[in-house]
């Protein structure tokens, strides 16, 4: 499964904002999200998501006061700005009037309370995150509008919002830092970054920015479209990934900045020299793909799979910037298939739109590419088929939350991607050479077992017992048991001897 269930998306948005608490209407055990956030992101803080448990009693009599009580309790204990009641697959079928609970709770509580408008059976994690973000933004802007505390003026200097950076996102933290740096270089102020680290109280100031940046189209696009419709805010949904798209992104920013500065026309900006300098000298990627090393990559076949943003961008980088052949590219974002197909037109041989990892596996097995760029799923497929894989998109494991600085966006991102691509292939080549020359696997010759071992007999039962021990520990157990038997002058090793040996060695 590539994209998780809907409530995960809502929880990711909720727990990215500061001081927002999510309450799931869910049975025991559905709060697995907290484990993921705590383990993958290595979060130091308690994840602001709890469950209002659905159990037998709820099934029999409905939640009654329980949900309202849980909301009010959180309100009293932690004083969040906003509490989001999150439905799960279980509550979807129970069809309780959760909106009613929210209405009742919001009358009493100091926190704002909203009900996440996501249907488990209609949307997945990504779509739910997109919706929830829009819902939260809309809620605060609408309210502000009603109260007419409206400050419509744009900021004096050019400014932008970055929308869609959030928790458990693929390299989101690093990308965010890279974007900040880029915008500082371009002399553009950052108005707000949402949802990560954002405060819902500040959302009313979103329209003060000159334009919105949507680095990943999966999450944030709905919000941007809403802000565009209601407040006429332009948005840039190009991902600044890869040198070509980087340049395109900066030019779009330039256009937006210049449109707004027309009145005071002497302040028009020209970013072309910046683009040129960065592309040729700050980013090493352009030079790298012309260097002799990269000649070896010419025409190598690859398969790319991931979310729409990353799969499309990486495909364009491989084909357009590195001259590598992309035999097949695919995405699991089925809802965005049209955009995806349009983006990669002309950069690949085949397109695969699916969320079934078995289908992706079959395709890879059939293509036999020299390298795969995909998610953790593809990494495992690659392992089985002995094809190297670079991970470029969620879903991911803990190793894709590196501590070091590893953006995928911006000019530093181009360097990181070039490394990733090159290293995947280099390893593939090494493997291949080793194969041709017989490999360096000399395990058979050099063994840790001692030649004096002969003379000990393992009876059939103990043999069998030994075979049940996981392989990585088996040799050690075998050695230790034999050592013990030799010390004690035992000739036949029985199961009993094995375990006596284990105990004896405990000391």
């Amino acid at each position, binding site marked *: *499964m590539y994209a*998780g*269930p809907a*409530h*995960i998306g809502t929880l990711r948005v909720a727990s990215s904002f500061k001081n927002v608490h999510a309450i799931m209407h*869910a*049975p*025991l*055990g*559905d*709060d*697995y999200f*907290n*484990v*993921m956030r*705590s*383990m993958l992101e*290595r*979060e*130091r*803080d*308690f*994840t602001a998501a*709890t*469950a*209002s*448990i*659905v*159990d*037998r009693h709820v*099934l029999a009599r409905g939640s009654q006061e329980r949900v309202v009580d*849980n909301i009010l309790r959180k309100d009293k*204990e932690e004083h969040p700005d906003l509490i989001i009641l999150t439905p*799960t*697959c*279980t509550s*979807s*079928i*129970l069809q309780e009037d959760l909106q009613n609970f929210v209405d009742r709770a919001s009358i009493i509580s100091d926190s704002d309370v909203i009900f996440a408008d996501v249907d*488990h*059976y*209609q949307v*997945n994690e990504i779509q739910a995150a997109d919706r929830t973000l829009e819902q939260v933004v809309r809620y605060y802007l609408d309210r502000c509008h009603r109260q007419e505390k409206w400050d419509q003026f744009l900021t004096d200097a050019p400014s932008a919002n970055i929308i869609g950076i959030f928790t458990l996102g693929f390299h989101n933290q690093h990308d965010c830092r890279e974007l900040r740096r880029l915008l500082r270089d371009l002399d553009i102020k950052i108005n707000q970054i949402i949802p990560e680290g954002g405060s819902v109280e500040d959302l009313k100031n979103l329209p003060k920015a000159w334009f919105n940046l949507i680095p990943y189209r999966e999450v944030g696009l709905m919000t941007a479209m809403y802000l565009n419709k209601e407040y006429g805010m332009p948005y840039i949904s190009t991902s600044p990934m890869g040198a070509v798209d980087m340049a395109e992104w900066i030019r779009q920013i330039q256009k937006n900045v210049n449109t707004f500065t027309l009145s005071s026309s002497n302040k028009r900006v020209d970013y072309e020299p910046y683009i040129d300098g960065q592309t040729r000298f700050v980013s090493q990627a352009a030079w790298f793909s012309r260097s002799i090393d990269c000649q070896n990559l010419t025409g190598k076949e690859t398969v790319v799979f991931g979310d729409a943003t990353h799969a499309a961008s990486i495909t364009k980088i491989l084909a357009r910037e590195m001259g590598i052949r992309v035999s097949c590219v695919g995405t699991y974002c089925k809802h965005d298939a049209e955009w995806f197909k349009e983006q990669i037109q002309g950069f690949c041989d085949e397109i695969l739109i699916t969320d079934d990892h078995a289908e992706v596996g079959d395709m890879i097995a059939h293509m036999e590419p020299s390298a795969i760029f995909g998610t953790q*799923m593809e990494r*495992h*497929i690659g392992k*089985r088929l002995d094809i190297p894989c670079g991970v470029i998109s969620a879903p991911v*494991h803990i190793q894709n939350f590196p501590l070091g600085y590893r953006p995928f966006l911006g000019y530093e991102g181009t360097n990181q991607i070039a490394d990733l691509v090159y290293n995947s292939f280099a390893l593939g080549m090494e493997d291949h050479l080793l194969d041709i020359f017989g490999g360096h696997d000399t395990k058979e010759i050099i063994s840790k077992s001692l030649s004096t071992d002969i003379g000990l007999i393992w009876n059939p039962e103990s043999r069998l*017992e030994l075979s*049940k*021990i996981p392989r990585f520990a088996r040799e050690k157990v075998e050695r230790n048991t034999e050592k013990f038997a030799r010390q004690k002058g035992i000739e036949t090793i029985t*199961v*009993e001897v094995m*375990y006596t040996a*284990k*105990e004896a060695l*405990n*000391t």
Partner: protein
Amino acid sequence: MSVKINETLTVECETGNYHTFCPISCVSWLYQKIEDSFFLVVGTKTCGYFLQNALGVMIFAEPRYAMAELEEGDISAQLNDYEGLKTLCIRIRKDRNPSVIIWIGTCTTEIIKMDLEGMAPKLESEIGIPILVARANGLDYAFTQGEDTVLAAMAHRCPESEFFVRERKETKQNFFSFHSRKKEELVEYANHPSLVLFGSLPSNVTSQLNLELKRQSIRVSGWLPAQKYIDLPSLGNGVYVCGINPFLSRTATTLIRREKCQLIGAPFPIGPDGTRAWIEKICPVFGVEPQGLKEREERIWESLKDYLDLVHGKSVFFMGDNLLEVSLARFLIRCGMIVHEIGIPYMDKRYQAAELSLLQDTCIKMCVPIPRIVEKPDNSNQIRRIRELQPDLAITGMAHANPLEARGITTKWSVEFTFAQIHGFANAKDVLELVTRPLRRQKNLEDLGQTNLVRK
């Protein structure tokens, strides 16, 4: 909130807002244990997502489990459940040919009242593979209780009467002269009614426990579950059964009520004290005088000395999520630790009676107050208590481990106790290895003085 010191054993109950794994996680260890099985989880994307993430890489090792993902059509009964499951099971038979298919019912099948129990026998006769139904859902159960529901369902499938089988065997042996083998067994074991142990353990741990009882000349005639489904033990009137894990109360009830077995109520063989008490409860049932147990226990304690020095006088707080808590707490108290609180998802006082009384005895023996036992704990209350008590070690789920560590509270991730080998004399060391690991790391990093790593 102040913390009372109990002189007697009491069980409090809180709100039940706590973190634990969904009971369907039992699939992860049971499919490995029962080699010829196939587990089919009938649930939603949420269940699948949990299994995929909780089991990590295992999902790609072509495991013998799968999800039957329910979609909107299934929920609104537009699709035919029976036909859907039939198609799936036929495919499973074709691809894997298992000896048994186990359907795991989830919250969703519960709510839409999908009649798995009704469909299973029908489909079973149609496709010719036994189909068991276990309702391991989060509405009713927590984490390890999932195994309980599966084993309870499996108990029904155990071959019926031991007598016929044994008589048949004996006549066979007379005819085909397996005399030598039989004689040998007679010498080694006391003649006693059959004993079946229940609870899923790695096969080398079952061997160790078998051996332990063999030393007392008690023969274990079978395990529920066995390594293979087709090797399920015989049950029936006159068969004695004994549990090895504290979360198997439904299985125990089924064995007593439905299978007419005699339950030996004993503490669980966790820690040398528990293992000894466990054997000592089993022996008299078969008229055996336990031999050399005291010395054996002492030898194990002796071998644990280094660990005991580390844990002595340190305090522990169990937040509670896997029902092993009472047994572990009892063992740790015996090791010289102070237990502040034993959180536990569910407390079956009858099934755990012997364990609870051993806990009480241990507390008296070690001169410490009996810790409060909190059933269905409330995690936010517990975290408040942890902050107040500042225990040396909090045994907790992963959701709270990192945040607590960042606040200077040393933690041990509780799920590891479920997957580590902790039963029997020989594995006592492994329990302490787990418990002391955070303490040892703490010691290694002590001089850095960076215990609190959150901004106020």
